[in-house]
């Protein structure tokens, strides 16, 4: 039987350290208010040993990918050390960018803004790399009637969330990651309503994120919706959250994890 997935999300920024830029892991609140957390590779190793099912790795620096050698070197280094499926993204605009991501160790690539600007890009990407490789991130704000945003929450696109998700499915997305920007980093619980609506109406896997603060939020997400996975950044990034305890609490609620 296929197991539900728990997916830690690592946002990567650079910090200047002894005149050299070093990738560090950060968390955000409502896609703003950045907090530095620590070294992504040691964090990734901890996740692997604690049975995380997958990792999302997001490049948070707004530097053109062509010049972003630091990120790709880092991605390569990360994937050399951690034998888990990696979904990576941030700033993807061309098929060549996708190739760079895959070449440096990503298994699935995450696109968001480019799909909002030109949805046919999703189709091209799926044809070239296979549907199973293309994950579309849908960011929305529950405070604004679930309006959809691209560009890290900065620009709005005028389309209903369910019809957008369906369009992405039809154009070749192999998976959707939903994030409620208004819940990001708030630890107040997932947006069950949207997770339920989208996961019950699509034929591709849906992952829900934004708002996990307790193990119970994971349980609720899996019990009340048909989502395949839950992704969380803030929840897993601070020491008071033990992955093992979270897993056993979810398992105790008869949710199928590995």
């Amino acid at each position: 039987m296929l197991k539900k997935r728990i997916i830690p999300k690592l946002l990567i920024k650079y910090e200047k350290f002894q005149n050299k830029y070093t990738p560090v892991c950060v968390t955000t609140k409502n896609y703003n208010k950045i907090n530095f957390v620590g070294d992504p590779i040691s964090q990734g190793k901890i996740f692997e040993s604690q049975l995380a099912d997958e990792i999302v790795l997001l490049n948070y620096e707004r530097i053109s990918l062509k010049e972003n050698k630091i990120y790709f070197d880092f991605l390569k280094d990360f994937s050399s050390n951690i034998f888990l499926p990696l979904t990576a993204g941030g700033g993807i605009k061309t098929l060549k960018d996708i190739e760079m991501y895959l070449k440096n160790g990503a298994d699935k690539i995450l696109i968001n803004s480019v799909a909002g600007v030109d949805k046919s890009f999703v189709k091209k990407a799926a044809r070239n790399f296979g549907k199973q490789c293309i994950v579309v991130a849908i960011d929305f704000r529950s405070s604004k009637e679930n309006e959809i945003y691209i560009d890290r929450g900065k620009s709005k696109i005028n389309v209903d969330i369910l019809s957008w998700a369906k369009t992405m499915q039809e154009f070749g997305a192999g998976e959707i990651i939903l994030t409620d920007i208004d819940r990001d980093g708030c630890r107040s619980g997932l947006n069950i309503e949207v997770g339920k609506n989208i996961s019950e109406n699509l034929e591709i896997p849906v992952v829900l994120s934004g708002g996990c603060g307790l193990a119970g939020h994971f349980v609720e997400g899996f019990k009340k919706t048909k989502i395949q996975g839950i992704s969380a950044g803030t929840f897993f990034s601070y020491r008071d959250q033990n992955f093992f305890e979270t897993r056993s609490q979810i398992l105790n609620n008869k949710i199928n994890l590995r």
Partner: protein
Amino acid sequence: MKISIIDLDVCNVHSISKCIEHLGLKFSIAKNPSELRDSEIIIFPGIGSYPAVMKKIIKNNWINILNQKIIHEKRKYLGICLGMQILTDNGEEFISQEGLGYINGNVLNLRKIKCEFVLPHTGWNSVNIKNEGGLFKDIKNGTHFYFNHTFVLNDIDEKYVTSRTEYQKEFISSIRKDNIFGVQFHPEKSSSAGIQIIKNFIISS
């Protein structure tokens, strides 16, 4: 022992490379058919679409060297995901496409075998091992591996099937025919059990 990994620029060859490095072994990346000339062990970690990859194989003249190595010299071959699927006679994704034909059978969308669950089949699923030993030496029946695919092998002679997996319907998750091995899941992404599969393939099988 020369290990080669085929790289057609459509997938992540980095992870499998690191897996082999992790075992303390050397390997080379083959981007052109000529680079397989002295290979003794070949791994093809294919993802992507069946027609797109087969077209690349045909266009870039991989067929002769693959026939030579796998069929005539009987070198060990491990196909991962699409690298396994192309061993069959034919597959379809967007359009129908002829495959390498080393193992009789074809490749179908899971929907065609009446699987109604969400697709792709993405995540960790258990593998019911039919033949212990081989790739599954020291691996417990029911171990979880990472899958990410929509298409599955179909119409394969039962004697070549080494494991099955259930996703509403049962499908073939690994095969072996003499020197030819294939897995539908991704050992290079399946943490320690996956590394064991690669080790079994290279060293003991």
